[in-house]
């Protein structure tokens, strides 16, 4: 199997998360009227790690936290060869009039975020929505979507595949770049 190139190792991974948490605290203070929502499945891992850091770095921070599954909102339903099975959505609050921060591990074509924003509309009309992503792949965006908080920027060919590994699932925090898409698992 092809070896991926490590583009962010364990140490820098942690630093990047710390920086993102401080950026969020800088803009949102105590997170008054703000809710944080992770997109299933990998965005939830990012959101959980960052919510822990935010609470550690600002003890006064208080916010609603939820998980959003976008399977039923995807624009490739009946266009994929293999259907996707959904994960849980756990949002037990309304986002009406709130500031919403959504989290995903990789921002690439922007289709996931587009679906997520459609899905969010079913929980109320948010005041504003911001996006946090750990990896911003700058090429081949399909929609006019931009992240407000970015971990690292990656400029890679379309054939390449970026994989974020988490210590919860893969033993170690790191980000890998594979040259060919077929190495996706």
């Amino acid at each position: 199997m092809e070896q991926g190139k490590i583009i962010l190792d364990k140490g820098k991974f942690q630093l990047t998360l710390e920086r993102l948490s401080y950026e969020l605290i800088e803009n949102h203070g105590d997170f008054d009227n703000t809710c944080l929502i992770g997109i299933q499945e990998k965005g939830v891992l990012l959101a959980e790690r960052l919510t822990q850091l935010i609470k550690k770095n600002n003890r006064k921070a208080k916010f609603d936290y939820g998980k959003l599954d976008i399977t039923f909102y995807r624009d490739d339903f009946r266009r994929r060869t293999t259907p996707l099975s959904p994960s849980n959505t756990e949002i037990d609050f309304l986002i009406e009039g709130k500031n919403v921060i959504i989290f995903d591990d990789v921002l690439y074509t922007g289709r996931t975020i587009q679906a997520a924003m459609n899905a969010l509309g079913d929980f109320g009309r948010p005041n504003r929505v911001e996006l946090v992503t750990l990896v911003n792949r700058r090429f081949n965006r399909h929609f006019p979507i931009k992240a407000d908080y970015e971990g690292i920027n990656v400029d890679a060919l379309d054939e390449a595949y970026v994989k974020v590994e988490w210590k919860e699932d893969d033993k170690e925090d790191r980000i890998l770049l594979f040259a060919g898409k077929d190495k996706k698992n």
Partner: protein
Amino acid sequence: MNGQLSTKHLLGIKHITKEDIQLIFHTAENFKEVINRPIKKVPSLRDVTIANLFFENSTRTRISFELAEKRLSADTINFSAAASSVKKGETLLDTVNNILSMKVDMVVMRHPAPGAPQFLADRIDANIINAGDGTHEHPTQALLDAFSMREKVGELKGKKIAIIGDIKHSRVALSNIYCLKKLGAEVVVCGPPTLLPKHIESLGVNKSYNLKETLEWCDIANVLRIQLERQDIQYIPSKREYNQYFGLNLSLLNSLKSVPVIMHPGPINRGIELDSDVADSEYSIILQQVENGVATRMAILYLLASREKIEY
């Protein structure tokens, strides 16, 4: 997790696998969350048109399917035989082909003739969902029953489930038996000898003629309606006598060591198979069954639709 049903149609539980059933449950759990939101709707099936063809009366199933379709954003058309050209002598195949030529993708059908959905599935292109065919199968009811049981008592493997009442005329009973056996449950059918089919044991279930013993044994009792409209001859001496021997009432339940969960697919004949003091008691999950019906049907429609790749 990826998942695809092994079948293009849902004609009966007999033809689907245990994995199909589990995939439907997994998907239904997520739809149950959707239908408890303030906006109970997702856009998945917005380019799908579904025809609901009811050649036989129905309240719950029909409303449940229609709600499931609307909550998936599908377009729906409703058809009931009573007010249609069926009365003028049009055949089933002609009726359905005419509807399909108006660009319909899926057909939900209830029909008094056993095998009618199979007949259509062999001849037309759309996905067919059996919403009850005569005394044969009622797969969506069995799936929502099993989903509700699982919600109440956990995985069904090894669980003891009794199906009580008019087994002979019940499509719900047959679909329930197939579904529960595939999930590894132990099943007993209980009722008067005239209403238990001969050779029912060949499906892997046990028979009982004693209601109290059966209730003592089981974790869940699924009580079925006496289908007087399908009974061509007298199978029971009287409704009153049936109620005395096979009807559930609260004093009977209170005399048990432990009371099973009580289910009923509806419509209930109050005072015949189920007395009101049981139907409205804390033991009954009849209304949860109805709620789960919408989520389960959403899962089935979603999964069947997802098999078809769209081409423009």
